[in-house]
């Protein structure tokens, strides 16, 4: 645990001024780019000048291109594959099928949940767009020409598209490749105390229940997936450049799949154009490019098209949930019960720690102090792409937060209580931390009411409540709705003993090397896809070593040079690798102290380090001091006899617990009774992620996640027709929010440091997407709650909102306003 190394460095509270910048009145940052300073990002220059190095920018001499032939059917047996016409295409070098991969023992690959997925279909297609064959050619256009000429003979089978259909007795069995599998049942899971929960429900004054679907989403990073595999027969070494959020674990899996020893594999994750969980799994394209490079002894590039990305790679959510609350008459929540039907697609390929088949969903009691809870889940196989990745989400916490925050609103309406008041009544109180939940989480710290109060004030809550009432009384064309979400997140997986990916413990790492001239290279086991690690981690080290942030370079994403780590997802980079960076820096500082003692001719016990100046000095004699730059020189040029030369440290950090960021979001919407359109009047987000490293980057992360929350709540949905055809499979049909759909966000924060994290930080990237969808849905429901509406499904498209309005007589017929308009002008509608 970190405290062995903290040397009295308890987490301190860093205070910021309202602009988020360092406050000279407090001890926030040391003015050289330390903790809490709004350092401009180091990574920006290459991106704004067009010099980023993304996967498709990588060029190798003699490089070939791979294009994948995909199934047009969702469920079909392959009778025959004819390669001959494809091989005749000018420039085509090879056509690979499962048969070819079988020769090299590469026909299948393990998913992150230890299911076995075909790299190229061996026998039966299980989802539309599944990989059937691969064409390798001299250029990209030739590869596509070849793919068009591969003739596949399919025997089309009946598909099963929804989890509900899949679990019916007469449903066709999708996974007949699994021995003994006679239905589409994937797994069952339960948590909590069923008996105690049921007993409370039987006795409770009030119970409420609601069914809600968290629809299938796709993370849809703007860069698709891709790889450049390069097997070097001279060194017997395979290098795979790939869009990976977790290069080290991918190296281990690649070794297991291919049989190539792990030290003969190098995974490089270059600049990655967004990940959001989509780039955690291994996809067949990566394996095919590696296999082709191995066989052909030439570099092979594979770049996915957008429709391939949405149709075949890891989707998110698809949890059909029933939520129930038991409460007293005065609104104290006593118990939570939930049952989930999960769609896992054709393979069990959810991306979450292996001992958590439902991810961290068991955090569904949220921010509330309840007596008992019970949750159960059944997952099914369907003829759709495998997935259930953690889209900007710590493994199903998004679904859990949606459930509890929606249910609290349902209860508030049932009891006719103010939704802010009912939350206040049920919050876990600050003096209850560390708090153990009924489902076994151990929350580190929190002050939920403070965040809610701040959000209420920022949102001008009372004003909008009055305005809402006025609109109802005046029978106005546009209704006001106010939605609240007071969420608690769980991030920063490990600890390693409970959390693992494919058996590897979820620790993370940092390696710091201070060079003779006083600057430093920092390497971390996590990997950025836009989160700003090159700046944030440099700030942590700058803070802990008193260095200038400009003198620190952060590297990541290369398994040949970086320490082993588990990667970036589940908001774990700051909680785990950020802790490793701080602890490694403190190890360097310890050694620096010894060198300082030698240089200043004093006992090591008498050397003090000043955080503000970054200098080491003799106790009681501040002028006898030495900087880290001079210490670095001494480490290489005049090292003390008691120490080894050099100034380096590495730390592998196994977190003692997870961290629990939280916040309160308030959304005010205006719902148009005529069109069903929803306008955002106010969007307030108050977050608490513990101590803040770079407020500018945090705010940017919040903005991005809120926009994705709006996408989830209002627009996004991967849809299928009855035949299993993806009908929302490209950007024409899978709608992402543009500048037009995003309102102005007002962000605020409170600071409740994590007591067990070396710098008191908690992680923040996912909070906005976890916390905002229930606030948005609560707001739209709130606009219609006076007529008894308790729920509306996402995405809340105008037609769906209008139908809901119409179901309770709140809709306005568009023709009414025409008549009024024309009546006013005395003109008649044109008859065209």
């Amino acid at each position, binding site marked *: 645990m970190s405290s062995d190394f903290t040397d009295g460095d308890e987490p301190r509270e860093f205070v910021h001024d309202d602009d988020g910048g360092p406050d000279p009145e407090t001890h926030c940052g040391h003015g050289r780019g330390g903790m809490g300073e709004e350092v*401009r*990002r180091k*990574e*920006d*220059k*290459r*991106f*704004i*000048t*067009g*010099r*980023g190095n*993304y996967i*498709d*920018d990588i060029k190798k001499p003699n490089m070939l291109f791979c294009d994948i032939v995909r199934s047009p059917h969702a469920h079909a047996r392959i009778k025959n594959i004819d390669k001959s016409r494809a091989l005749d*295409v*000018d*420039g085509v070098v090879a056509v690979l099928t499962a048969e070819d991969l079988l020769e090299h023992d590469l026909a299948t690959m393990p998913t992150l949940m230890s299911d076995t997925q075909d790299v190229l279909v061996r026998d039966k297609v299980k989802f539309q767009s599944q990989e059937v064959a691969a064409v390798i050619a001299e*250029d*990209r*256009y*030739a590869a596509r*020409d070849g793919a068009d000429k591969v003739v596949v003979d399919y025997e089309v089978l009946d598909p099963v598209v929804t989890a509900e259909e899949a679990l019916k007795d007469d449903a066709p069995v999708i996974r007949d490749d699994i021995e003994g599998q006679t239905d589409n049942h994937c797994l069952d899971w339960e948590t909590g105390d069923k008996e105690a929960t049921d007993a409370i429900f039987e006795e409770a004054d009030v119970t409420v229940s609601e069914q809600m679907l968290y629809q299938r989403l796709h993370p*849809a*990073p*703007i*860069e*698709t997936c891709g790889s450049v595999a390069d097997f070097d027969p001279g060194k017997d070494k395979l290098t795979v450049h790939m869009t990976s959020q977790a290069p080290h674990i991918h190296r281990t899996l690649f070794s297991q799949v291919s049989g190539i020893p792990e030290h003969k594999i190098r995974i490089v994750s270059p*600049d*990655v*154009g*967004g990940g*959001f969980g989509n780039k955690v799994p291994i996809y067949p394209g990566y394996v095919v490019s590696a296999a082709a490079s191995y066989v052909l002894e030439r570099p092979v590039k594979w770049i996915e*098209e*957008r429709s391939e990305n949405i149709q075949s790679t890891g989707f998110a959510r698809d949890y059909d949930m029933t939520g129930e609350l038991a409460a007293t008459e005065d609104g104290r929540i006593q118990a939570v019960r939930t049952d989930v039907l999960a769609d896992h697609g054709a393979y069990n390929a959810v991306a979450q720690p292996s001992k958590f088949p439902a991810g961290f969903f068991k955090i569904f009691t949220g921010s509330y102090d309840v007596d008992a809870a019970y949750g159960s889940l059944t997952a099914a196989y369907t003829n759709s792409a495998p997935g259930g990745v953690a889209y900007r989400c710590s493994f199903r916490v998004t679904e859990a937060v949606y459930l509890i925050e929606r249910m609290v609103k349902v209860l508030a309406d049932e009891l006719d209580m103010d939704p802010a008041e009912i939350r206040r009544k049920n919050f876990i109180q600050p003096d209850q931390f560390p708090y153990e939940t009924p489902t076994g989480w151990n929350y580190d710290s929190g002050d939920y009411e403070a965040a809610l109060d701040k959000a209420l004030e920022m949102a001008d809550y009372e004003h909008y409540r009055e305005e809402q009432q006025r609109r109802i009384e005046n029978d106005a064309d546009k209704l006001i709705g106010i939605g609240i979400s007071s969420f608690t997140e769980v991030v920063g997986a490990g600890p390693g003993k409970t959390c693992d990916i494919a058996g590897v413990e979820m620790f993370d790492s940092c390696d710091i090397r201070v060079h003779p001239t006083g600057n430093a290279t920092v390497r971390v086991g996590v990997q950025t*896809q*836009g*989160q*700003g690690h090159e700046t944030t981690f440099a700030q942590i080290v700058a803070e802990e070593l008193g260095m200038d942030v400009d003198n620190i370079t952060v590297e990541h994403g290369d398994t040949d040079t970086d320490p082993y780590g588990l990667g970036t997802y589940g908001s774990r980079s700051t909680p785990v690798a950020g802790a490793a960076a701080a602890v490694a820096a403190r190890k360097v500082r310890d050694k620096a102290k010894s060198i300082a003692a030698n240089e200043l001719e004093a006992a090591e016990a008498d050397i003090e380090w000043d955080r503000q100046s970054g200098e080491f000095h003799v106790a009681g004699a501040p002028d006898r001091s030495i900087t880290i730059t001079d210490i670095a020189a001494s480490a290489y040029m005049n090292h003390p006899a008691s120490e080894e030369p050099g100034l380096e440290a590495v730390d592998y950090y196994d977190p003692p617990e997870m961290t629990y960021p939280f916040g309160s979001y308030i959304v005010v919407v205006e719902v148009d009774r005529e069109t069903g359109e929803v306008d955002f009047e106010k969007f307030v987000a108050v977050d608490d992620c513990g101590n803040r490293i770079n407020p*500018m980057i945090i*705010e*940017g*992360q*919040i*903005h*991005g*996640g*809120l*926009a*994705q929350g709006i996408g989830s709540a209002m627009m996004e949905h991967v849809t299928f027709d009855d035949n299993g055809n993806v009908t929302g499979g*490209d*950007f*024409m049909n899978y709608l*992402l929010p*543009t*500048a*037009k759909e*995003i309102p*102005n*966000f007002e962000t605020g924060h409170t600071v409740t440091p994590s007591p067990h994290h070396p710098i008191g930080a908690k992680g923040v990237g996912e909070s906005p997407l976890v916390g905002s969808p229930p606030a948005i849905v609560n707001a739209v429901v709130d606009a219609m709650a006076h007529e008894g509406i308790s729920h509306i499904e996402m995405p809340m498209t105008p037609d769906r909102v209008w139908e809901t309005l119409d179901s309770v007589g709140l809709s306005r017929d568009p023709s009414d306003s025409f008549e009024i308009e024309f009546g006013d002008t005395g003109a008649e509608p044109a008859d065209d």
Partner: protein
Amino acid sequence: MSTDSMNEEGGPTTTEITVTVNGTQVTADVEPRLKLSDFLRYHCDLRGVRVGCEHGVCGACTVEQDGASIKSCLSYAVQADGAKIETVEGLTNDDGSLHPIQEAFHESHALQCGFCTSGFVMATKELLEENPSPTREEIETGLEDNICRCTGYQNIYKAVESAAAKMEDD
């Protein structure tokens, strides 16, 4: 290459085009089906032109053709014959200093993963050339053909406003 576009000798039909790319004249023999985005990325080595969807929605491939922004994934190289193309690489001054729009994107933290950034910078350039001091609503409309999945657009608006102010001062 394409079996559908063979010439009499059985080779692919190509056309000679001359395009002025970031001030430099480029002459090349290209297939009629070669997308402008691929021509710029692979023939001209301008990798700042990003391709995010290949169907004209995301806007990452936005470049300027004869002063107007276009989505280069929806255009063919042969259609650019005789045209002037400007990409994000052309914005940086010869001495390496940044264009005010690039500066503003950095200062306002208007990018995260950076993949959509080239397209946004080029869309902003056209927007500000047409309307040197746009309102917030005009910025939203001006940039609605580009998608950013990371920033939530707030800081992009700020960057555009800041770039407008910088360019007015120049």
